C-alpha cells in the first residue's frame, strides 16, 4: 500500500467492491452485472446498492433463480464482446454452476487453440460462522483452483478487494472472485485515486521473524489477530497473504518460509485436499531444507458446517487455535 502523509479515506470491504464495480462500469460500457437480486435489492448482502440507479436495469440485471443458465449466458457474453460480472450469492451454489465454469468458461480458450476468450468475472462468497448452516457456509474455492483456465482471487482487505476486482474485470480470462461474507463490514483504508493490483502478487501483511502464517481471505484477519497474541508471548509472526490462489506468487511464500523456517497455512476451505495442501506442498518442495518443523495446515474440519453456534465455531480456525498451533510449532 502506498505511503501517504494525509489520512486515507476508509471504506468497508462491501463499499470497496461496489466502488470497483462502479468505476469499471463507468470506464467500460461492456461491463455489466447479472445475478439474483442484484438490482433494486443490491444483493442479499446490500453490496451493490445504488448501482442500478446509476447504470440502469440493462447493466445491473436481475435474473431468474437459474444459476447454471445465467452463468452460461455470462460465459457466452464474455466470449462475444461483453465483460459480464456474474453474481452468485452463496459460494455453496458452485455445485449448480460447475459445468459452466469448469467445462465451458475454463476450456474455451484452450480448446479453440487460443481463438476464443472468455472475459468474465464470477463474484461469489465464502465463510462460515454466520449461522447459515451446511448449504450457505462453505468455502469451496479449491474446486475452482483445481481447474486450469480459471483464476481465483481471494481478497482480505477493502484495499485489496477494490484493486483486485478492477484487475479481474479487465482480465481476458474467467476469474472467480471470492468475498468473505463476514468481512463485508470490515473497514480499511482505500485511496480515492484509481489503482489496480495485479493478479498473482502476494502481500506480506505483517513482517515477522520466527514463523510464517500463510493465510487467505477470511483467515488473514484471523492470522493477524493470532500474530498479536503471539507477540505477547514473544513470538514474531509474519503474515503472508497470497491474494490470488491462481495465479500463485510462489516466490513470496517461499522467501518468507526460508526466512522464518516455520510455516502454518490457514484457509477456510476444507483442509482435506484443500488449498492448504497445495500451499504446504509449494513450501515443502521449495524450502524443505530451510524448515525447522513440518508445515502445519489449518482448514475447516471435514464435516458439513453445522448450524448450532458452538458446533459451527469449532469447525473453522480462529485466532486462539492458530496462536496455539504456532506456539507448538515454535516449541513453546
Amino acid at each position, binding site marked *: 500500500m502506498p505511503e501517504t502523509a494525509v489520512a486515507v479515506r476508509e471504506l468497508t470491504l462491501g463499499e470497496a467492491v461496489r466502488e470497483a464495480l462502479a468505476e469499471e462500469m463507468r470506464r467500460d460500457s461492456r461491463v*455489466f452485472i447479472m445475478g439474483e437480486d442484484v438490482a433494486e435489492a443490491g444483493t442479499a448482502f446490500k453490496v451493490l446498492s445504488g448501482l442500478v440507479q446509476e447504470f440502469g436495469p*440493462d447493466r445491473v440485471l436481475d*435474473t*431468474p433463480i*437459474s444459476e*447454471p*443458465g*445465467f*452463468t*452460461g*449466458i*455470462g*460465459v*457466452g*457474453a*464474455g*466470449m*462475444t*464482446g*461483453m465483460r*459480464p460480472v456474474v453474481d452468485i450469492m452463496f459460494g455453496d451454489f458452485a455445485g449448480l454452476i460447475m*459445468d*459452466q465454469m469448469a*467445462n*465451458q468458461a475454463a476450456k*474455451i*480458450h*484452450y*480448446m*479453440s*487453440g*487460443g*481463438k*476464443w*476468450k472468455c*472475459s468474465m468475472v464470477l463474484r461469489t462468497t465464502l465463510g462460515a460462522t454466520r449461522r447459515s448452516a451446511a448449504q450457505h457456509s462453505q468455502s469451496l474455492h479449491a474446486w475452482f483452483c483445481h481447474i*486450469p*483456465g480459471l*483464476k481465483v482471487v481471494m481478497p482480505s482487505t477493502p484495499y485489496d478487494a477494490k484493486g483486485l476486482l478492477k484487475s479481474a474485470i479487465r482480465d*481476458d*480470462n474467467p476469474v472467480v472472485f471470492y468475498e468473505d461474507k463476514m468481512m463485508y463490514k470490515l473497514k480499511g483504508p482505500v485511496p480515492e485515486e484509481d489503482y489496480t493490483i495485479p493478479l498473482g502478487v502476494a502481500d506480506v501483511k505483517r513482517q515477522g521473524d520466527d514463523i510464517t502464517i500463510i493465510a487467505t481471505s477470511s483467515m488473514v484477519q484471523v492470522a493477524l489477530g493470532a500474530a498479536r497474541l503471539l507477540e505477547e508471548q514473544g513470538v514474531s509472526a509474519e503474515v503472508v497473504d497470497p491474494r490470488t490462489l491462481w495465479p500463485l506468487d510462489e516466490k513470496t511464500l517461499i522467501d518468507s518460509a526460508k526466512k522464518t523456517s516455520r510455516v502454518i497455512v490457514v484457509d477456510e476451505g476444507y483442509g482435506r485436499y484443500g488449498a492448504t495442501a497445495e500451499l504446504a506442498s509449494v513450501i515443502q518442495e521449495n524450502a524443505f531444507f530451510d524448515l525447522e518443523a513440518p508445515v502445519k495446515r489449518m482448514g475447516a474440519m471435514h464435516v458439513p458446517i453445522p448450524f448450532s453456534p458452538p458446533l459451527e465455531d469449532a469447525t473453522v480456525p480462529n485466532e486462539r487455535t492458530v496462536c496455539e498451533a504456532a506456539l507448538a510449532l515454535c516449541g513453546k
Partner: protein
Amino acid sequence: MSTVIAGSPPDSAIDNKLFLRMYRRMVMIRLFEEQVNDLYTRALMPGLAHLYIGEEAIAVGVCEALRADDYITSTHRGHGHCLAKGAAIDRMFAELLGKEAGYCKGKGGSMHIADPDTGNLGANAIVAGSAGIATGAAFSSKRLGNGRVTVCFFGEGALGQGVVYEVMNMAALWKLPVIYVCENNMYNEYTHISETAAGDILARGPAFGVPSESVDGQDVRAVYAVTKRLVDRARKGEGPAFLMANTYRFMGHHVGDISREYYRSKQEEQKWKSERDPIKVATEAILAQKITDQAALDQIQSEVKAEIENGVQFAMAAPYPNVDKVEQDVYA
C-alpha cells in the same frame, strides 16, 4: 413415427442457385463424414467421431439462412454444422487428426471445432453445454446492437438438460435473438426418445412464450425456409424461437457403434436411408423440377470428392504440434 418421416411440399420461393448450393454443401458433408469413417476404420484417426450422415439438410438449410457474421454453437455431432457455416475442409481434417494446422491447433479435436472467422462459437461435448453460450452470444448481440443472430444446435438428448429451459426462459424474458434448433434424430445415444422425453416437445417452447415449429429435417428447402423466417424475426428484435427438425442418424452414435440391432432395427434404418435420405430427396426434386440434369449433379459430386481428397492429403501430411505447445493457450 409416420408423421416424422412425411415429406414437405417443395417451396417455390427458394431459387435454383441456392438449391444447388445447398445440394453441393450437403454432398460435401456426406463425403467428409464418409472419409472420417474411413480414416477411423483404417486406424488413421485418433479417438472417435460422431457422424452427421443423414442429418445434412438441417445444418445446411439453417446455415444458409444465416449471415456470415451470425453465430452458431454446435454439438459432439458437429462436423456438419462447422462445414455448413463455412469451415474449410483441409483445416477440419487437420483438427480431426490432431494436427497443428487444424482449427484449434489440434487441441480441440472432432468435438470442439471452433472458429471466430465463421462465427462458430464452438462445438461442445457436454450435451446442452452450449445452450448458455449461445444465449449469452445473443445477449451480447442485443446489447451491442450488431444485428447478429445466434443458432444453438442441439440434439433431442439435450431436452433432458435443465439448463436448456433456464436459458429459453431468459431468452424470452429479454427477447434475445437466438434460435434453438433441436435435431431430433430420435436416439439419445442408444436410447429411443420415447423413453426419455415426456409430453409434447413442441409444447415446451410455448410454455415460455417461445414460438416453436417443427420441420422435415430431410428436406433442405423446408429447413431453409422456416429458418429464414425465424431468423428474420429474431433479427427484427422479436425474440427467440425453437425449431425441431425431425431427422435420423444413418450411422451409429459414433464411428465405433456398429452393431445397433439391440436399440433399433435394420429395417428402420433401411427405410430412412431409402426413403428419406436428404441428398436423394434433393436430387429427386432438382431433377423433377429440371433445375439441372444428372450429369451436372455428378459433376458436383466429383468436384467435392476432389476437395475432400485434397483436404485429407493436406491433413495427413501436416505436422503434429510440437510438445512444447501443450501449456500454450491455457490463459489468454
